[in-house]
């Protein structure tokens, strides 16, 4: 369902440009990370967000600096959208001392606390109760922040998710659960392992506000997120947003992807690219010219290139400091 721009709160040019550049930054960041992985400079796995950019960017457009997010193993996109510094983020992905986590977390555990992230929790659903705890903390300290808890549909089977939904609801906490359903948990399609497909019904069961949206359409994400975040910030309780999306790369860069046909992936790249969809929207509604869009694209590429140079030239952590930061 295409959204009518008139019905929205008319995001201004700045917001639109910001969203576009963020999407490009995420796209290029992930591609660079992928290349680094192939070159062997990234040792661990990289789980790219390519194809899902609209969700994090659309939601983050409504977030304040002091709002918080919890992220997952596929967390670079969440962090860039929330405003993390690209240099320090890429430096962390290749394990340098200048990285956000001083080389101790890596891609799966990136964390940009100064940008309002509580970190990427690499174990399925492990970040959700933490998000609930941060929300509890917020109301106990009389703060009007909201917490966004990202997760994939693979977490819908995890007990911890249900515990978190339950507690958020029973305590009426300002946390918004965002399910990025990209149809595959590693190699397993969700129909195989999740007994329910109506995600909005899940929200009903847990007595919280629910939304089901097309995660590839950033304007739909933007519009929905605006309403839901406002509602939660006003103290009306938690919410559950189910965003249908698709990842264009494997679960991790370099995965053989024998579980889905190449045609399906190609079809998705052609028809479901959120950047393309956004550009179409912008051009159709004359909200941005092609040149402006290209400039933004260019800018994003430069930003990522700068980040790459920064990261590659940064020093490694000192081996003798391996035990630093264990205890406070």
């Amino acid at each position, binding site marked *: 369902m295409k959204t009518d721009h008139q019905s929205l709160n008319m995001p201004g040019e700045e917001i639109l440009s910001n969203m576009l550049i963020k999407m490009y930054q995420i796209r290029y960041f992930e591609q660079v990370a992928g290349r680094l992985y192939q070159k062997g400079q990234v040792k661990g796995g990289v789980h790219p967000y390519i194809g899902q950019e609209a969700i994090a960017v659309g939601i983050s457009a409504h977030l304040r600096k002091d709002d918080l997010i919890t992220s997952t193993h596929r967390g670079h996109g969440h962090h860039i959208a929330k405003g993390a510094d690209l240099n320090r983020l890429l430096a962390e992905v290749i394990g340098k001392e200048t990285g*956000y986590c001083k080389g101790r977390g890596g891609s799966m555990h990136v964390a940009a606390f100064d940008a309002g992230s509580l970190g990427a929790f690499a174990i399925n659903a492990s970040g959700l109760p933490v998000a609930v705890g941060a929300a509890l903390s917020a109301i106990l300290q009389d703060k009007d922040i909201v917490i966004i808890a990202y997760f994939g549909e693979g977490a819908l089977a995890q007990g911890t998710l249900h515990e978190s939904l339950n507690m958020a609801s029973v305590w009426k906490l300002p946390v918004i659960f965002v399910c990025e359903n990209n149809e595959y948990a590693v190699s397993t399609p969700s129909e195989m392992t999740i007994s329910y497909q109506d995600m909005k019904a899940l929200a009903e069961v847990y007595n919280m506000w629910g939304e089901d949206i097309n995660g590839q359409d950033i304007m739909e994400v933007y519009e929905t997120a605006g309403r839901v975040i406002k509602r939660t910030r006003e103290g009306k309780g938690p919410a559950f947003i189910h965003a249908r999306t698709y990842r264009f790369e494997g679960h991790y860069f370099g995965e053989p992807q024998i579980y889905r046909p190449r045609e399906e992936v190609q079809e998705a790249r052609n028809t479901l690219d959120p950047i393309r969809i956004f550009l179409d929207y912008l051009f159709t509604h004359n909200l941005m010219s092609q040149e402006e869009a290209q400039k933004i694209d260019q800018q994003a590429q430069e930003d990522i290139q700068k980040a790459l140079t920064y990261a590659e030239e940064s020093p490694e952590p000192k081996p003798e400091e391996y035990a630093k930061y264990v205890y406070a």
Partner: protein
Amino acid sequence: MSMPEKTESPREITYMLAIREALQAEMRRDSNVILLGEDVVRHGGGFGVSKELWEEFGDKQVRNTPISENGFVGVALGAAMTGMRPVVEIMFADFSALAIDQICNQAAKVRYMSGGQTKAPMVVRLPQGGLSWKSAAAQHSQSIEAWYVNVPGLKVVFPSTPYDVKGLLRSAIRDDNPVVFLEHKALYGFKGEVPADDYTIPLGQADIKRLGKDVTIVASGYMVHFALEAATQLAEAGIDAEVIDPRTLKPLDEEAIFVSVRKTHRVVMVQEASQSAGVAAEWVTRVQEVCFDWLDAPIRRLAGKDVPIPYANSLEQQVWPRPDDIVKAATEVCYR
């Protein structure tokens, strides 16, 4: 209000009341100290420890959780990472197995994985142990300190007296790291002297419960009391035992143990937990590494048997070390 007023002289109170007083004092001192757990409101938790706290501090600082151990420990972590100092009560230490992800994978590691950007100042209180002869059996009587001592990033405390538990809980709450705070449930009714004034006991500091010169007995939790009982019997036989209570299992005050061993030359370690890879094995290894040349005999290690704790009393009696076992071991290392 049944909480005793501050008096001039030290008072004798139970281990349980000592815990409650510590919680109360810290919650008064800092409104960010919150208590989360099952049945803590009005009911006082599983054992009555947190009675009367909700009446004083209300919903802002005392909250009942659903039966979601992993979930609510994670909630505590999220709160700890955002400015609160939560104390989480899990009803039985055995149930903490459900929360191993949040305690060991998350709370223990958030500081390190984030390169120091955050910290997790939280306390997870776990009532553990058997010896109360209430036949709680295999899933409600375990001693599980070894599960946590092994995990880098955690601190593990196991006090044995009212004085120790009160001072250590206050320090644990003030510590900026995740602390697994073990309480021995069979000691909840145990009375001991507690000073009238505010005091804390630092983590990582052992206590000499009895000075001696012939043999060192290292014990924790309920075993401290068995060791003291054994020491009385040993004294009658002319063996003067020194009893060391580590109090904090991680980080371990190994130097206190070494000083004792260099004096006595003979060592017996006692743990209630089942033997394999228990904390006593860690103590033995450290002593052997550093004090080898001071040893007059191989180090003895007494522990619970490697069996799930049985229900029938006659079987239960076989599981844990008793004072007689400690006396025998100490006598043997003294070659008497």
